[in-house]
């Protein structure tokens, strides 16, 4: 079985111009991933299925990455005039600054691929394929990989239902788990669930807060 790095170079050779990059996984599992641009995803997926042998897509799921503030240390080098041993000299100085910036969040679709025809190999790591949407609100389209692996059919519907990623080219993209009239995407991390905190005999933490908020909303009488 090829490692993610080998596969990356193979992909770049076989499909010139595709935007694929490596996402390293620092945990002991060492399951590294390939991040593929949405526009190239179908080409890469067909290559993986038909040429690289990944005929089995085991798992497809969504992940929600919120907007977050990243603090980065930026090194800038500049030339300053300084007094060295009584003589004014031009010295290069490096200053480290912490710069905060907002990184916009995105939704991610993750596919875990295996090969059935290659049979037992050791170690049997999954090939992880990732795609990212542009943002979390209005540009949440990704190409559907159901034409490549049918097993993604229900799982992509589930991602659409719970995360709100719209899969272009899916043959039947409807909500899978929630009812059709439902409007939210409940697995998103900023989802607030409906207020039914009427009777909470043993509340604490989050539940306590919600129960108190509920009581306040009901006028505090009940």
């Amino acid at each position: 079985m090829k490692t993610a790095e080998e596969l990356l170079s193979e992909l770049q050779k076989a499909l010139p111009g595709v935007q694929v990059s490596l996402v390293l996984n620092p945990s002991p599992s060492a399951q590294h991933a390939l991040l593929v641009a949405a526009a190239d995803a179908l080409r890469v997926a067909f290559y993986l299925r038909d040429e690289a042998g990944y005929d089995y897509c085991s798992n497809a799921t969504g992940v929600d990455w919120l907007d977050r503030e990243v603090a980065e240390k930026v090194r800038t080098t500049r030339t300053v005039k300084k007094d060295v041993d009584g003589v004014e000299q031009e010295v290069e100085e490096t200053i480290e600054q912490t710069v905060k910036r907002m990184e916009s969040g995105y939704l991610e679709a993750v596919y875990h691929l295996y090969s059935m025809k290659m049979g037992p190999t050791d170690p049997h790591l999954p090939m992880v394929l990732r795609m990212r949407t542009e943002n979390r609100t209005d540009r949440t389209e990704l190409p559907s990989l159901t034409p490549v692996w049918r097993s993604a059919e229900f799982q992509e519907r589930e991602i659409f239902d719970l995360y709100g990623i719209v899969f272009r080219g899916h043959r039947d993209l409807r909500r899978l788990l929630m009812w059709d009239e439902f409007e939210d995407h409940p697995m998103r991390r900023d989802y607030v669930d409906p207020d039914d905190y009427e009777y909470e005999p043993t509340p604490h933490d989050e539940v306590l807060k919600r129960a108190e908020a509920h009581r306040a909303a009901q006028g505090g009488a009940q």
Partner: protein
Amino acid sequence: MSTSAIRSYLPPVIEVDAENELLEVAMGPHHPSTHGVFRMDVALDGERVVRLKPVFGYLHRNHEKIAEKTTYLASMPYTDRLDYFCSMTNNWAYALAVEKLAGLEVPERAEYIRVITAELTRIQNHASAIGFLMQEMGASGTPLMYAFREREKILDLFEELSGSRMMCNYMRFGGCRVDLPEGWLDRVSRLVAELPRFVDEMEALLTGNEILMARAQGVGVLKPDLAVNAGVTGVMLRATGVNYDVRKVDHYGIYDRFAFRVPLGDHGDIYDRYMLRVLEMRESIRILEQALPQIPAGPILDPKSKPRGFRPKPGEAYGRIEAPKGELGFYLISDGSGNPYRYRVRPPSLINLTILEDMCLGQNVADVVLIFGSVDIVLGEVDR
């Protein structure tokens, strides 16, 4: 990209005479044969199924959302309630994923205990699955009664070990919760010695039965290439003849140490699936016979594992095992805090249903119930 390679695997469209009026039937969510709260919207042309849409979500209990709001350990009892027939294998799959994520080692004794409990789980799951399938075929009672009689014996052993009949909550990250109670292994050995007789009895009752053959052979046929592409796993996949068993492929646990075969089917129909379940029970008994005398003494938990304040380093892991229903996987993303950032269950039951429509189209409506029953699903896992 070679153009010939672009093959998609979509269900066929059944041609219907324009004059025929289609009958739309909603089977479920309360239907005597749907294994719980599952719905199929079926369109019928006479007796023939021309369209079938499964509807899910009637048991969507937000397992993943709850798990992301709580600690790693607190999700362990929830995994029991995924596939509520097989809590031991669910525990194992989750523990395996966390062990991969955090790099924990499992002591040898715990590995043996895991194999023993998992194979017992497989036996009782397959026995019950056959019982329910026969129930749907109209064999009211008897096969299911026999299956549950044996199941009770296995549940007694689980209760002795873990304290609960169904919701064992027994495995921990890096091992198991408690050591075996005294005399437990002897009682398992005694049961394992009795089990072949039970399987023989089941086979005498069913395998040669003409009604079963007439209704099951050649019905609900699944082709191997479609099965692979649709991610079908477990008995469903092997009944089509594809040799893929995660126990053999992934070398997880200590399955390498035991000699056992992977039974394969030929036709991919309901009868093959029934037969494979029987054969897998026999193989499980073989594994148990080998594992029971070998079990070593020693610790049962990795000393690095702790119940409170468990925080794996950032990263992600996908761990999977061969559960009785198919490949059960857990995908975890850690952000270094005490709660998983993403917690995902790869439910074999849901993905095995992808091809339900393909199998049912063109068949009689009475067979839909049977085909559905042969997939062997549990709604707790389908909807989570």
